[in-house]
């Protein structure tokens, strides 16, 4: 078996790409560089650094810098999504004028939608609205985009999160097992299994699962969105039906929500296992081959302790990074799964909007996802600093 060390890690993020040098800079490169070069920090500086206050300040600075760094990307997203939507073929005015509309009514609608103005003008209006917190109104669903996103986002998030939890619970142990038995059939089998999972188009997996578990076996409930008709959605607190059901103490509803969640979550999880397992394996191999693991063994720590307490905890760092990448990727990719399972999430919303050139909806969706992406990366960064002390030295 030929996968270990840094290079393995580089490629191992799978679909989601490498070690995320753009998204995650971790400690400032020069500081890290100097640390790698073995430069020691002054003794007293070291003590000061260890002090929590300085670390917290450094972290706050780091977050601030990351937010600033992500602003250009958001601006880019706003511009590109605007241009892209305008480049979409078709005339929304004609489309929404409905059947039997004549040229005059189309023109009326065009004016109503503000599409009769020049593109720069439209852009300024759009940006102005955006700054005022107004994402506009979707013409295809007739709802304010913000409202619609707010209602649908929890659905997508709930699906994505459960899929990822599921996927992590399966993939990480698989990756660890593969690394612990590197080169054996266990290793190859793990690789084959997770690769097979990522080899199937999600919509196909979804439909196949529905066919088998609902249509043929009848184990799963009808794929009708988030909750069977028998139940009413729980009082919205988080927007996650499962969580809200628990908060409201409605266990029946919880069961219903979980039952609906099962198949789509499994579909997505199958698809996301590969990068996680790959990364877990590569990171685990690297950790297992490291000097500190040897030290731990030489110090007499039990094999379990060495494997989980030392190697695993270190190997989880790159996995967390991958998890962030996979998460944002999945949020975008569950479009197809949502379609199959009639899941009322943002993905299916975006597809419908795109097909009918519903500018505001597409732009709103893209922007929301971009903000989510940025926030997510920030969160991962923070988690990373929390678990990896090396990143705390700040600027």
């Amino acid at each position, binding site marked *: 078996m030929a996968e270990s060390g840094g290079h393995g890690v580089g490629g191992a993020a799978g679909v989601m790409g490498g070690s995320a040098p753009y998204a995650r800079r971790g400690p*400032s490169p*020069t*500081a890290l560089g*100097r*640390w790698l*070069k*073995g*430069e*020691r*920090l002054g*003794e007293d500086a*070291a*003590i000061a*650094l*260890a002090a929590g206050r300085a670390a917290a300040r450094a972290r706050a600075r780091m977050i601030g810098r990351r937010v600033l760094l992500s602003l250009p990307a958001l601006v880019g997203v706003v511009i590109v999504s605007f241009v892209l939507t305008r480049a979409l073929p078709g005339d929304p005015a004609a489309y929404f004028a409905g059947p039997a509309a004549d040229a005059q009514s189309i023109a009326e609608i065009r004016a109503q939608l503000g599409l009769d103005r020049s593109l720069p003008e439209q852009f300024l209006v759009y940006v102005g609205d955006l700054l005022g917190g107004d994402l506009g109104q979707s013409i295809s669903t007739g709802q304010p985009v913000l409202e619609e996103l707010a209602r649908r986002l929890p659905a997508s998030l709930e699906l994505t999160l459960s899929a990822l939890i599921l996927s992590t619970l399966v993939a990480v142990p698989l990756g660890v097992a593969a690394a612990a038995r*590197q080169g054996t059939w266990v290793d190859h089998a793990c690789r084959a299994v997770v690769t097979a999972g990522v080899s199937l188009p999600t919509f196909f997996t979804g439909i196949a699962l529905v066919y088998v578990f609902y249509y043929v076996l009848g184990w799963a409930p009808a794929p009708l969105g988030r909750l069977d008709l028998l139940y009413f959605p729980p009082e919205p607190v988080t927007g996650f039906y499962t969580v809200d059901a628990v908060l409201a103490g409605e266990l029946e509803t919880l069961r219903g929500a979980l039952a609906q969640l099962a198949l789509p979550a499994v579909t997505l999880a199958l698809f996301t296992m590969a990068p996680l397992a790959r990364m877990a394996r590569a990171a685990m191999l690297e950790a297992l*081959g*490291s*000097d*500190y693991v*040897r*030290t*731990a*063994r*030489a*110090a*007499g*720590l*039990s*094999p379990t*302790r060495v494997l989980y*307490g*030392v190697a695993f*905890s*270190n190997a989880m*760092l790159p996995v967390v990074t991958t998890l962030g990448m996979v998460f944002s990727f999945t949020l975008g990719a569950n479009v197809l799964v949502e379609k199959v399972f009639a899941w009322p999430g943002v993905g299916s919303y975006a597809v419908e909007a795109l097909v009918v050139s519903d500018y505001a909806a597409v732009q709103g969706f893209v922007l929301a996802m971009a903000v989510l992406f940025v926030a997510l990366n920030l969160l991962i960064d923070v988690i990373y600093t929390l*678990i*990896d*002390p*090396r990143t705390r*030295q700040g600027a």
Partner: protein
Amino acid sequence: MTALLDVSDLRVEFATRHGVVSAVQDVSFTLEKGETLGVVGESGSGKSVTSYAVMRILDRGGRIAEGRVSYAGVDLRAASEREMGAIRGREIGMIFQNPRAALNPIRKVGRQIGDVLIRHARATRQTAHDRAVEALRAVEIRNPEARAHAYPFELSGGMCQRVVIALALACDPRLLIADEPTTGLDVTTQKAVMDLIAGLTRARGMSAILITHDLGLAAAYCDRIAVMKDGQVVETAPSAQVFARPAHAYTAKLMRATARPGARLRDLLETPKPEAPRPAPGAALLVVESLAKTFADGVRAVKGVSFTIREGESLGLVGESGCGKSTTSSMVMRLLDPSSGRILLGGEDIGTVPAAHFPRDRRRGAIQMVFQDATDSLNPRFTARRAIADPLMRLTALGGRERAAKVEALAEQVGLPLHLLDRFPHQLSGGQKARVGIARALATSPKLLILDEPTAALDVSIQAVVLNLLADLRAELGMSYLFVSHDLHVVRLLCDRVMVMRGGEIVEEGDAETVMERPAHPYTRSLLDAAPVPPALAAETPLMETARCAP
């Protein structure tokens, strides 16, 4: 009295892609209570594998194929994994090379020590912290309470090594195995760490195995020395005896090749050769004036140094890690733009040509460099031939056939067998890679060759050959050298003059012999003191009593 550790006929095999290879065979040695055994040998001779076999922490694919390892009468080969777990850390402690990497990077050092204490029931969860601080105090770490809360990356290399020692000794083992505990540390730190280890083992009446390839170190700290070669112990004898009367030819070769005071370059070689003549210095070739470099992040790596290298002269630059040696040489090399100062080559200021444009400058060929890490400095995708030809292609107007001839001539010049020219770097040994690097540097017939610790990564015997090669080349080609190193003995062998650098400044400069014999600056003196001095060989001077040798 039975030996504390008794290893006999040990053979360790590894399952590799080429089938099973045996890394170590027929290794036998014993270790008495309170004794310190040095294991010396060149890289790959099986020193580490032997120690790992004793601890039964061989890498995946490795197994003890034959032999007996008994510790205090317990057969370690037959012991269960559970029993081994109890022995490791409590009975036998181990220290590794590269201390920073040997510590779990995301756990506070105090906790790491605490983990071991708890594991061996030397502390409870409640007392673990206090006991860990005690252990840290025992290794003479200043302010141990605060250090216990530090992560490894917050500590210097020397401190990390102390922590590793604390970790290894936390449970009062009776045997300590130290696998190259000081490689990668500065000479001054190295001495402090070794003194600490020696002091602690002596105070606690422990036995120790010190693995090293530095004969001086072994001689200074060990009672007996085992010499390993190709997976076998070729000789075991008391230290003094090994040096005085090496029984095995290999041992003699090793001794001989070690740079030491009083020896001349040729003395290092197996087969004596006439000393290469040192060319008489000519006119000033390189004049450096108040050269300074401040990096973007504000680090003032070099704070205004001035020196002159004359034609045919060899100037040594010594100093501890991080003092700015490489930065200085990079600037002279025109790989890095100085913040201020002038670099005059043959009277022309080359410092004004931006580093980014210098590759195309006509004077590029005049200054070349041999790098510290031969492996790193060779493109893994280029064969040796291509690596040597590259500067010829870029900097000379030679045609294809002439170039091929020149490459072979260069290879011959540096003593590289021609059949090796089509190999990739990973197919060459360390010494061969060093030769490729030198041949490449010579390709453009430079006037000034900068040698940035060219032998630091090499075994002593290869180092001896390479140093001699460099001396011969200088004599032959009349080049000037700027030789960067932190090994004072080596510098003395090759250089006419020496500069001592500290914190980006030159603190002392002078004739090599003078600086070595009568250092003016206290810093130079401390450097000299810290360097372990291998005993002189029998053939040269009578055996010196090794004063620092542990009883």
